[in-house]
């Protein structure tokens, strides 16, 4: 399915993408800021995400962000990743100007209230506890990142490395962060839905056009040195079951190996007929569940395999069995039919994702961040062109044991 859009750049450097869809009564305003947890100071992690919370605490001219939006029949949310921060508003198209008004004012400047910072620090600490402390296996993702990354800031989580980093955030940090990252030259605006391009452009000019451009943030992150030796970490915790986690370094989202890598994770872990599930859960009965996925991150990231062991299965047996499945993928080219299966799954996943206006809007912004929103329309072709040989070559590169980080997570019980 072709996603039509028009691209403009406003005088202040803000990029605007407009996607018309007149089959819906709704409109979406999506603002992506080119800043994520990877841009944080190692001693103040979790800041990009905490900042996202503060973006709802009122802006320079609008004391209350939430109520005017609700009054306009709108809903909104945001998410922060290691790479980027994305805000979206969906509302009835008639009231789209309200969204432009709200989003432009918080791009202009925040209210910077002590009270808001104080409350959101607590809220984020509760979020941290809810997802990572008060939860069996909640600390795993922290350990895996620290094991796999030695230099790159992907070694910490978006939520932050530790609670104290969030507890210690000061209003001066908030102001500096805003100045550095939240400005037109570092943002991408998408207006989508039941609106004409002319009107979208006029609204963007009206509300965003006069915001000072700000300074382009030049990202200079430490490059992760190539891993040359397998890494193993053992941990013990008060959890019911042993679990096993393996991470392999893979290329960046914009790398040409991305599509074959994505298909490899699908071959291994996507669904009831995937290789790891069929072999290790169903046939050998070593795991009660097993998954394979990747980060899809802007910088080179990780492909993960993780599973919980059946009670009584030795860790080494489980680890060896995963290795055998990976070796099988590395030893021979896969059959065309199996490759076709994962291509069809991908085609279908793209179609289902594109059904939602909100997804289309945020995807346009993300592809633009990658270099060109038009890439969104050539994705499927790239997947369909992958050959068994490419899969084979890439699998051998990724699943080199020296490229692996393994966490043996033992139950105390």
């Amino acid at each position, binding site marked *: 399915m072709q996603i039509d859009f028009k691209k403009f750049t406003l005088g202040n450097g803000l990029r605007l993408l407009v996607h018309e869809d007149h089959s819906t009564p709704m409109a979406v305003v999506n603002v992506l800021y080119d800043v994520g947890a990877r841009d944080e100071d190692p001693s103040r992690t979790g800041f990009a995400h905490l900042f996202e919370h503060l973006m709802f605490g009122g802006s320079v001219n609008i004391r209350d962000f939430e109520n005017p939006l609700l*009054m306009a029949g709108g809903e909104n949310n945001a998410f922060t990743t290691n790479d980027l921060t994305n805000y979206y508003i969906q509302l009835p198209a008639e009231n789209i100007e309200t969204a432009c008004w709200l989003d432009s004012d918080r791009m202009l400047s925040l209210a910077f209230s002590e009270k808001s910072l104080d409350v959101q620090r607590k*809220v984020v600490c509760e979020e941290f506890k809810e997802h990572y402390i008060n939860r069996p296996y909640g600390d795993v993702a922290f350990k895996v990142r620290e094991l796999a990354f030695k230099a790159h800031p992907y070694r910490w989580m978006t939520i932050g490395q530790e609670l104290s980093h969030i507890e210690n955030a000061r209003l001066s940090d908030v102001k500096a962060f805003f100045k550095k990252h939240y400005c037109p030259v570092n943002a991408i605006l998408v207006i989508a839905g039941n609106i004409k391009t002319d009107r979208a452009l006029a609204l963007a000019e009206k509300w965003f056009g006069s915001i000072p451009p700000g300074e382009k943030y030049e990202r200079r992150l430490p490059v992760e040195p190539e891993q040359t030796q397998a890494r193993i970490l053992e941990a013990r915790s008060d959890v019911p079951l042993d679990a096993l986690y393996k991470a392999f370094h893979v290329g960046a989202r914009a790398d040409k190996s991305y599509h074959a890598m994505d298909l490899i994770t699908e071959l291994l872990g996507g669904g009831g007929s995937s290789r790891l599930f069929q072999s290790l859960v169903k046939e050998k009965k070593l795991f009660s569940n097993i998954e394979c996925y990747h980060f899809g991150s802007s910088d080179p990231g990780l492909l993960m395999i993780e599973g919980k062991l059946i009670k009584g299965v030795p860790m080494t047996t489980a680890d060896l069995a995963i290795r055998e499945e990976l070796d099988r993928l590395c030893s021979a080219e896969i059959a065309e039919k199996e490759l076709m299966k994962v291509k069809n799954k991908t085609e279908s996943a793209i179609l289902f994702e594109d*059904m939602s206006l909100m997804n289309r809007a945020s995807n346009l912004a993300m592809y633009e961040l990658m270099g060109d929103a038009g890439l969104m329309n050539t994705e499927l072709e790239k997947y369909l062109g992958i050959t068994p040989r490419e899969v084979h070559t890439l699998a051998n590169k990724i699943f080199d044991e020296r490229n692996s980080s393994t966490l043996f997570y033992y139950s105390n019980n």
Partner: protein
Amino acid sequence: MLNRKTAPVITDAVKFELSLPPSRQFTLQNGVDVYMVDMGTVDTLMLNFVFYAGNNYEQRNPEAAAANYMLKSGTSKKNAFEINEYFEYYGAYLNRSAGHETAEISLHCMKKHFSELTPVIAELIADSIFPDEELEIYKRNMQQRLQVNLRKNDYVAGRLIDSYLFGKEHPYGRYSSPEDYQALNTASLKEFYKKYYQHGRCVIFVAGPLPENIQQDIEKNFGHLPLTGSGRPDDRSGAILPATEKKYRITNDPDSVQGAIRMARNFPNRHHPDFQKMQVLNNVFGGFFGSRLMSNIREDKGYTYGIHAYLANLIQDSALMISTEAGRDVTEETIAEVYKEMKRICDEPIPEEELLTSKNFMIGTLLGDLDGPFQVCGRWKSLVLNGLSADYFYRGIETIRNIKPQELQELANKYLVAADFYELAVF
């Protein structure tokens, strides 16, 4: 000069004309009703089979969930791997789920592959064989999953609050232990399957930009199946027996840093005249990000990452549920604040402005929810399964538009009464 202080003029969402796109109904030769929602711009379809086969119907817990899960575990022609591979080859998702009243099979697929997939779904409904080995894998894996879940305070709280509201013997309040999984056997699952799937009562929903031959396709594949069950449970669908004790503090994980809080009361089902009114009141109270509970307990006090109030989506009987995870040291304060908000909404009429905001939000999101064939079909499914018609949908909108602060205050005094609430914190 641009005036950034004043909000742009808006159209109040309550003034929007909302309509529920139609569903076309027809009946297969075996008597099964099919509801079709023909709309959408993306070539994807959803086909949904609702069986009256939830845990309301089981003799032993968790038979209904196990039978539903095992529908993809083998037929006389295909083993589990082949079934999975077949659907996945076409990029289709075949999911199943079991609730209290109903259990479902749902297919999401690309339109171009629809007719390749329907015959295999018919095969699962007519010819599943429940292999012993598959059941053993399921039992072990589910016991392991349960062990992990039981370590989570919010999971434990969710089970307990339902058992207080409805009683442990009622399907809504019943929950599974590892021993219950251990006791599952293929003979009783086959019995359940025969009665509630092969010969069960089924309703079919299909949505998307439908192919021209959709009706023939469904008739050909499903019209000859003996789906003539009555949809009535054998027994056990016992009376609701709420617990007499109202307040509970449970220790689940002594090291936990948060308490899982549930506060709940029984509430009548959708047929009760107060149900839709309560949805409006609940929205103001705890139903969305701008609600009173969220504004006070998250946005003012920072006690929690989120707090929500909702009416349980059940057919026979509902419940009003307040749910949150709060810091261990502020759990009691959080509960106290919820009661304060209850008292405030009982004592003072909701200010007009606040009410209009909440109403606009409800209508605005409803407009968004009706955007797309699957969402529209979901609305119709809810109406059909609850024995309601499109009138109910339009009455709901009128209720949102017209209800006044005074009536909501009366409603609050009827239902948001602290003494009627079960109160649970799991640490």
